């Protein structure tokens, strides 16, 4: 009962899950790199990258579950933080291209040469340094979320109104990034990356390493979220989710709690985006489309809101289904399936996959659970 906050975070399921992630992070690269392609156990490189991409989505889903599942903040613009992290990483890799670009300019990326720009805009300064770029991966989404959240939470913008302005945020950023004179490559975005920290991004070894790092980041993100939600801070978050004004009358500064968790969540989404970009090889403004952010919320709903594990499982399952569907004859119907999935889950499986299993498990053992209430009953 009187356990250290760092140990308290690890219940049996979390330990099993983290153990599984370690096995995957080490095992998949080994099966990919050390076994010959003829072996039945060989994992092809394209699959490593594909699942690496899913793992980044899972980290994004985790960041959404932290604020939505535990604090009731439904952000429909989290794709924006993901994309900003991605752009920061993309800028670093653009600067690494150097003279190898089509125009061979030592400093300016190709698209700037093409637009007849003479010098690098000031906001591209420093991105040739990996450390600086990584700092920006966390800082840019974090600061944007902090400023945005500071205004929104202080003005007590909640519920659907908050969701709508987050949609507006990501839409506005999308329009901005689509413009050529914004300085981020317009609608083509940033692509044609050559290497990262001196390693060829296309190389099998780099891809396997990126996969392992992504899984490690997911494990770290999961552990961090667990530590937060099992702390007293986490209990306050749940209290805010269930009865915000009650929490306020108890003397908690609700906006400070929301702001902290929202900023943290945005930084996590930024890291997910930064790991995503080298694995897919491109970042463009379509990552800001409002639909993307909504899709990420669907992953969480399918997996089970307020369970953390569910966010990870939902993101991987839905994206696996998406890949399967959109590469076959059923491709035109994917969006119908996705929409149907969301309605189906809401009606038939309101707790999501993990939530339903957990509810059933606790019910069987005659225990009551601390589930997310199916219907919010806000206090007046």
């Amino acid at each position: 009962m009187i356990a250290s906050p760092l140990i308290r975070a690890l219940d049996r399921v979390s330990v099993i899950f983290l153990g599984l992630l370690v096995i995957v992070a080490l095992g998949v690269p080994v099966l990919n790199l050390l076994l010959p392609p003829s072996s039945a156990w060989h994992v092809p490189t394209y699959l490593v990258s594909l699942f690496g991409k899913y793992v980044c989505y899972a980290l994004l889903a985790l960041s959404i579950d932290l604020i939505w599942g535990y604090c009731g903040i439904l952000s429909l613009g989290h794709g924006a933080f993901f994309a900003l992290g991605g752009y920061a990483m993309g800028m670093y890799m653009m600067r690494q291209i150097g003279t190898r670009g089509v125009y061979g300019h030592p400093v300016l990326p190709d698209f700037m040469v093409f637009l007849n720009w003479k010098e690098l805009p000031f906001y591209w300064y420093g991105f040739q340094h990996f450390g600086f770029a990584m700092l920006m991966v966390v800082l840019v989404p974090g600061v944007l979320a902090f400023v945005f959240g500071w205004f929104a939470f202080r003005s007590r913008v909640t519920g659907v109104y908050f969701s709508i302005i987050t949609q507006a945020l990501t839409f506005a950023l999308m329009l901005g990034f689509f413009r050529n004179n914004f300085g981020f490559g317009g609608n083509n975005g940033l692509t044609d990356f050559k290497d990262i920290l001196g390693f060829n991004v296309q190389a099998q070894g780099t891809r396997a390493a990126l996969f392992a790092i992504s899984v490690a980041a997911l494990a770290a993100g999961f552990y961090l979220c667990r530590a937060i939600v099992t702390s007293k801070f986490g209990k306050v978050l749940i209290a805010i989710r269930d009865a915000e004004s009650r929490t306020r009358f108890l003397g908690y500064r609700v906006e400070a709690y929301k702001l902290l968790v929202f900023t943290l969540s945005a930084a996590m989404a930024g890291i997910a985006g930064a790991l995503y970009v080298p694995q897919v090889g491109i970042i463009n403004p379509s990552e800001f489309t409002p639909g993307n952010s909504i899709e990420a919320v669907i992953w969480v709903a399918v997996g089970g809101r307020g369970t953390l594990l569910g966010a990870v499982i939902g993101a991987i399952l839905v994206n696996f289904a998406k890949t399967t569907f959109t590469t076959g004859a059923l491709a035109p119907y994917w969006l119908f399936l996705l929409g149907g999935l969301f309605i189906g889950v809401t009606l038939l499986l309101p707790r999501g996959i993990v939530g339903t299993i957990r509810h059933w498990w606790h019910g069987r053992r005659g225990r009551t659970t601390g589930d997310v209430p199916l219907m919010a009953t806000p206090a007046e």
Partner: protein
Amino acid sequence: MVPHTATLLYLDGITVSFDGFWALNNLSLTVEAGEMRAVIGPNGAGKTTMMDIITGKTRPDGGEAFFDGTHDLTGLDETQIAELGIGRKFQKPTVFESHSVEDNLLLALKSDRRARKTLLWRETPEVSGRIDRLLETIRLTPFRDRIAGGLSHGQKQWLEIGMLLAQEPKLLLVDEPVAGMTDAETRQTVELLKEINRDRTVVVVEHDMAFVRELGVRVTVLHEGAVIAEGSIDQVSANERVIEVYLGR
């Protein structure tokens, strides 16, 4: 018992209107430290709005509200007022439904409310001792690990009173504590409130005249946002204005 010398709560000429409707109309009320006060009045008399003013949920259009002599309540928000030592129990029981009874009390316990303190917080034997004592006071010891959402209506009311106590406020505002309670539960609630009043000031808003009679404290009658009578329950029930308001002409 706290000596009846200082005024703990002072409301003077409070006026609130919502779209031209006067919810409070020149309301004045003082509550002494250590007192228990019952506030009654028909529906729409402004009882809940008065609580909203005191706790910072609503800003008055005019008038003064002071707590403990020096704190101007009209310039503070809910969190600041809660920190000053005013606790509030809502009309509809509002507990944190998905937390256990224990965690509900833990969140309410007087402690540092800042985010960085709660992040690194650890449970101590002293805290669980305080929770033990609270559970005894509100008669919920066997329900410690229960999820609050599964409690009966009366138990939720008590849990909320327990959460109020855990805050160690100077002033407790209790809005309709016995609404929906059985007679036995109502009697227990009377005892509980009297027990609490031994070292805290309490303002109870209630409809139920029998309950107010059992409390046996000074009564303030509100009607259309203003005080129309004040005194013992026998005095106010003999007041013609009160009879008129309650029974109609």
